[in-house]
């Protein structure tokens, strides 16, 4: 399969279908047993997470990976520092006004202002998720892969959240891929959808088409939903 620049892509599939595994492979956490992955024409198969991240592929996690004992703002500053590590960032002063400003900006972008100075570990799941995504987005990656961004987020906030996440990320330059179980969200945001089932791709195409696919309806959606 191929991801195109500027696309918004949803990945759906039953539990255990291999969605997370797919993301893990693209981001270098797992090595594929066969096959190759190319990014911008370069073979990135077998690169570790760090190198794929530096190449411009970032991700969020199904179970949020955050710095639990720091505050939300500090998490974002830390992410910014980490992202500039290879640009000589190790010796430069870390806590500059400019950085804090940037972090505050991300806070605003992802609707996290209210929690800026709360220690992350004790925040509700939903907020952790948002922060997780905000951290993934710090580097302005070329591809961002979101693993179930809305799970754990209140239903009435899901849409708002997806808007706040996807709209700022999606521009001509970057591609967004998200794994999702909520078909409302998929329909609303994805331009293209891939359905996984037991490790294989069941369908791939325009969202409406895929969701209308018989097999997808049977194995993924269980007959509900329009």
């Amino acid at each position, binding site marked *: 399969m191929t991801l195109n620049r500027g696309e918004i892509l949803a990945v759906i599939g039953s539990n255990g279908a291999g969605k997370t595994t797919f993301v893990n492979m693209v*981001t270098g956490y797992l090595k594929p047993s066969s096959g190759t992955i190319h990014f911008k024409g370069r073979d990135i198969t077998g690169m*570790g*997470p*760090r190198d794929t*991240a*530096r190449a411009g592929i*970032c*991700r969020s996690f199904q179970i949020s*990976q*955050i*710095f*639990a*004992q*720091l*505050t939300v703002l*500090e998490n974002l500053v*830390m*992410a910014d*520092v*980490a*992202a*500039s*590590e*290879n640009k000589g*960032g*190790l*010796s*430069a*002063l*870390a*806590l500059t006004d400019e950085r804090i400003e940037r972090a505050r900006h991300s806070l605003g972008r992802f609707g996290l202002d209210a929690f800026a100075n709360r*220690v992350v570990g004790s925040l509700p799941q939903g907020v952790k998720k948002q922060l997780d995504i905000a*951290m*993934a987005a*710090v*580097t302005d990656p070329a591809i961002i892969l979101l693993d179930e961004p809305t799970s754990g987020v209140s239903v009435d906030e899901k849409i708002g959240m997806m808007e706040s996440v996807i709209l700022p990320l999606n521009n001509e330059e970057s591609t967004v891929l998200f794994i999702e179980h909520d078909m409302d969200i998929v329909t609303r945001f994805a331009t293209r959808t891939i359905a996984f089932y037991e490790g294989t791709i069941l369908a791939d195409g325009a969202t409406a088409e895929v969701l209308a696919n018989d097999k997808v309806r049977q194995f993924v959606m269980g007959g509900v939903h329009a």
Partner: protein
Amino acid sequence: MMKTDFRREHLYIAILGLLLILGFFLPSWLRFLLQTAIAGGLVSLGVAIQMRAGLVNFGQGLYFCLGGYAVGMLAAKAGITDVAVLLVASIAVSLVAGVLLGLLLSRYREIFYAMLSLAVSMILYGVLVKAAGLGSTDGFNIPPVSYFGWMPERAIRANANYIMTVVLVLAACLATARYLKSGAGMLCEAVAENEIRLAYLGASPRRVVFIAIVVAAALSGLGGGLYGIATQHVDPMMTNWTTSGGFVFVALLAGRGSVIAPVIGFFALELVRTYALDLAPNAWQLVLGTVMLAVILLLPEGLWSLIQKRQRQ
């Protein structure tokens, strides 16, 4: 919440400076205790730096010892007694050791980091015990040192020594504060919290840890050099695990609020120890252990939390 409030560091170091200047007028035994304690405090500071990255070094005495022996061997065996050369050597030796060990140790985490660093320091202990030329367990003595060619008279030797120690400890604190404020220093906390995320942000946890190890090594080497010059004696106990355990203890109890916390904490521990020895020569370990336990139970965030709490209110 981040452990260190970086903006206040300069203030704290200035306060430490002031205290140490006042310390000049203490009775000489107490001033000497202060002098050796702040030298040892640098080693605890080194331990504290690694602790920010979640790593506990139970073998930090290795660098302390290398620093001390570098000074000792140059002064006692090669006859070079100028502090400029001696201390540069002590830092250089421990720095090289830090780089070499850092390459190995930066892969390790948690208890394995602790035990491997302990093992390496104990191997050095074993080598020194075998080194009859260096006095084996007895160690050897270090002659008085000169300062850029000036050899102070016996009467003011202690003063010169104290002043030099204070200046260098303060400089080391400033340098450490600068390091902690840099990307490499700050990311230590990220390593401790979540390496997966750190890697996914494009940073190398291993590199961050490596730098922390090297910085800590240099600090500890300097601490060892200053300690050797102060006590005029070095022996292999400096790299024994019990010594390292003391550094860890101070680093933990002092709290991580400021670079000066371990330095002051070390002095506090030494004071408790020496008074316990004086008042209860037969049960001083019991007193010391009880004090430790009490601090752990009553001040979970370390001694520094007393200061931080006040600020918050």
